[in-house]
């Protein structure tokens, strides 16, 4: 087993404004090694997205600790967490979350700009790798859903981050396009040696995963297969 890149210790998260006590995570202990492809399943409200947001440093835990590549997120502070997202994390969302006023190329380039390397060539290459050559100048609303998600993948991968967090990357796509996008995402991560943590409802995600995790009621469980994981 390789060195761990993501570690959580007794992670708790409570939302003040939510019902049922608002406890989204209940003592998550997790270790993910470099280059692993993780599929994270669970019903709505089980805490999958919350866990992803905490790992990305977008939100803080109520209790517990998170280490990314050996660095404690709490110690890093806001500035440090921002730098972490710039250099070490790539995000792929269900609803693509491209900036609507920027073209496909500009959306990808933005990621490089923030990482401090605003070079058009890798951005163009990243778009070519996701099969969007010739569509660099298009705005998000001029692209199909699948194409928008490819731009989002290119934006996440272009800066070669060691970790990619994907929150239901195929949730908003039809099954054929979803499979294509999943295939592309996993392939690119494997080629780059990046760790991919995918939140998903689609069972075919299991086929691509090295490790399957399931969340239920704020707790995490290790699964050996997709059997019994009803969507």
């Amino acid at each position, binding site marked *: 087993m390789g060195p761990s890149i993501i570690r959580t210790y007794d992670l708790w998260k409570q939302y003040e404004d939510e019902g049922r006590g608002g406890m989204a995570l209940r003592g998550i202990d997790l270790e993910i090694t470099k280059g692993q492809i993780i599929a994270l399943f669970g019903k709505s409200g089980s805490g999958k997205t919350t866990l992803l947001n905490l790992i990305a440093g977008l939100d803080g835990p109520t209790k517990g600790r998170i280490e990314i590549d050996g660095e404690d997120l709490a110690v890093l502070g806001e500035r440090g967490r921002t730098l972490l997202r710039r250099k070490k994390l790539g995000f792929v969302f269900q609803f693509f979350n491209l900036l609507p006023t920027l073209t496909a190329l500009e959306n990808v380039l933005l*990621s490089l700009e923030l990482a401090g390397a605003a070079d058009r060539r890798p951005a163009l290459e990243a778009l070519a790798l996701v099969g969007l050559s010739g569509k660099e100048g298009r705005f998000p609303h001029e692209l199909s859903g699948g194409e928008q998600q490819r731009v989002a993948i290119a934006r996440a991968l272009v800066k070669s981050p060691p970790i990619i967090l994907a929150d239901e990357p195929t949730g908003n796509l039809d099954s054929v396009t979803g499979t294509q996008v999943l295939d592309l995402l996993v392939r690119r991560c494997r080629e780059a040696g990046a760790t991919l943590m995918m939140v998903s409802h689609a069972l075919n995600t299991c086929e691509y995963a090295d490790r399957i995790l399931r969340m239920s009621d704020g707790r995490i469980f290790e699964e050996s297969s997709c059997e019994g994981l009803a969507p």
Partner: protein
Amino acid sequence: MNGVIRSFLRYLVRRKSLSVLQLLGIAFGVAAAVGMTLASRSALQSLGSAVDFLRGGTTHTIARPAGPMEEGLLARVMGDPAVKYFAPVIDRKVRLEGGEQVRMLGVDPFLDKDVRTLTARIAASTRNNTQEEAFSSFLFDPGAVLIDENVARSLNLSPGSTFNTMQGPLRVVHIFPNPSGEPLIIIDIGHAQEFFRMRGYVDRADLVVTDEDAFRGRWATGFTIESNTQKAQTLSALLGAFRLNLQALSLFALFVGVFLIYNTAMFAVVSRRRDAGILLAIGASRGQVTAAFLVEVLLLGVAGGALGGVLGYLLSGFLVKIVGNTISTLYFFLKPSVLPWSFWNLAGGVFLGCAASIVGALPSLLELRRVQPVEVLRGRIASRGASRRMKTIALSGLVCLAAALTLFGLSFLNVYIGFAGAFAFLLGASLFAGFVIILLVPVMKRLFSRAMGLAGKIAIGNIRENLGRTSVAVAAFMITLSMSIGLGSMIDSFRQSLLWWMNSQLRGELYVSTKADVNVPEEFYEELKRMSGIGGIDVFRNVPITFRGKPASITSIDASVLQRYDRFGWLEGGDENWEPVKQGGAIVSESFSRRFNVKRGDRITIETASGPADLSVGAVFYDYASEHGVIMMDRSTYLKLFGDRTINSLGIFIDEGNPDRAKIIDQVKLRARALGLPFATREEFHKRILDIFDNTFAVTRSMRVLAIIVAFFGIAGALMTLFVERQKEFGIYRALGFSTGDVARMTIAESLGLGLVSFLMSTVVGTVFAVILIKVINLQSFNWTIFYHFTARPYLVTALTTLTASLAACAYPLWSVIRKYPVMQIREE
């Protein structure tokens, strides 16, 4: 340009129509402030140049404290060792045949050429042009005058022409240029004495004094010596309250402008919140997001400010005329000209635009800094927690209102504190907008549902759901409507108070001349006294004075006549207050009392022809004739103190029930007409005063219109944003089977709903604002009490304005709905 900034700025291009509305909103807000400032400044500048033009090289003037100065004194003045040059002047008004009044200066051309380039040039030019005949005509022909080019143009006169005045015909011997713009006629001083029947007297002497202290020492008793600096200060002080009001109006316009920018910025934040969340998630810092938003806001500020600077300059061309007319009507002739275009108009506009943008965008900027990417990415929008937030905002509104109350309590220290209080009140009231929407929505839902069906119900729901946006639009619109109601109610209350004052103090059957018109010869007064049937004649004389270094005035009247026929409004006591006046005491107006802190029973010292005189103040009366204050005394007291027999006007009183009333009035009119004296019946006189009053508020009315235009852009912007932001929602409506007509009705209902909440709020806020204007601002600025009178007119006018603005504001969004809705689909991006 980096990607973060680019992603924000592209919205300006992407949502062109919205950007244009935002830009125009800022531009009009800035234009109001720039226009009013420029108009005010041109008035002051013109005042300076008018004073300089007539002052020439003189340094001081000497005159009696009231009335003309004996000619015999001139030799003594001339012989004073401190006087280098001197020039006697008669400064009066002549009434042209058409009724227009023109200032007429009687000067001695030989003495005057040493102190004034104007007359020196006339004398020189006539001689250089060998027009010896014209010059000698000016000296020896009793009706020969020099007229300025404006009078010549308006009366179509040229050298040699003759024109008629109420006092007799005049013949033009020369036309001279007059940069001051004030119509001016110049006559030889000897002829002026004949013309105005003041043989042996002059009004003043203009001097060049070398040793001021020594001169003042020698002429301290019985004379008023005024340096040019003092003169300028006096004129400027006369305009003090008026200028203050102009400043306040421009500040209010800017306040609305800032609100609109806040409105604009708030809309921008709503649409940028999601982008900010994405940017933060992919590694942008909060600083970068804030900077990008700031650049966007500043860009609008710069462009809107620059446009506002240009529009403001154009607006000043219109306002300067109104301001000039008002000053000429109320204080002294002034014809301000528009200031030349300057780069600083643009720079000032940009500065105001940027400053207002930063102030207006600050709350939104802070909100953007607090954006939680997790919340945004989870699809949460601010309005989900809006109810609670609106309550918190309303609580901060309460804090603002408390601050306003404190400031009102301290406003006696300075009127600006009162203004700050008024702003705090408006700000505090605006913070209640969201809370009021929440309160009113259930009722409005029922109302709109009944009137417009499902579309109306959904529309009101939309207003509630988009509180973040709609509350700001309502606040901005409500503030302008409140200003409209407040100013309207204040003006109406003032008008009612003025009517009450006129009906109690100006009860004469007929008034012969006025203080602003030609004087009434004393013989005419004597002639009327001999007429049978007249119950009483009030002899009115008003002279400006300086009291404790500030401008004020003395009025002499016939106390016995006024006691019998008038019904003065007294702050304390009743008509028994006239008794001490008849015995040599004085009464003072409310504004005098407040300005100089003089109360009933106090003693005041005034400069008279025979030195300082001590007068007892018997009472204080309500008065709206002058905000600078009036000391009123019986004519017998006045004659004793000043020896000035001038009469400005006569008030003719006839006993009620006198069967010959009409005949007597006709007789007086006939005799006045024979002497060329103007006259007016009570009704005509009252109407003239009301006309002046209405003209005075022309500027205020213009600013109200402008504020409403600014607010219109606010509402239009809000509706447009709602439309742009809810594309997905419109897609759902379409899928559910809503027709274009349904959605169009929904848009209209949203606009009317926003207008209705704004109007309902403004009826309360506007009424309170009117009371603030009356009880705090006016009292501090003008020192007089206005009695609050409820009139429906401001509310009806504002209701109509609301309806018009709401319908006009939804015109463009409606057009967008009709154009775009039929092709809308449900989509995420």
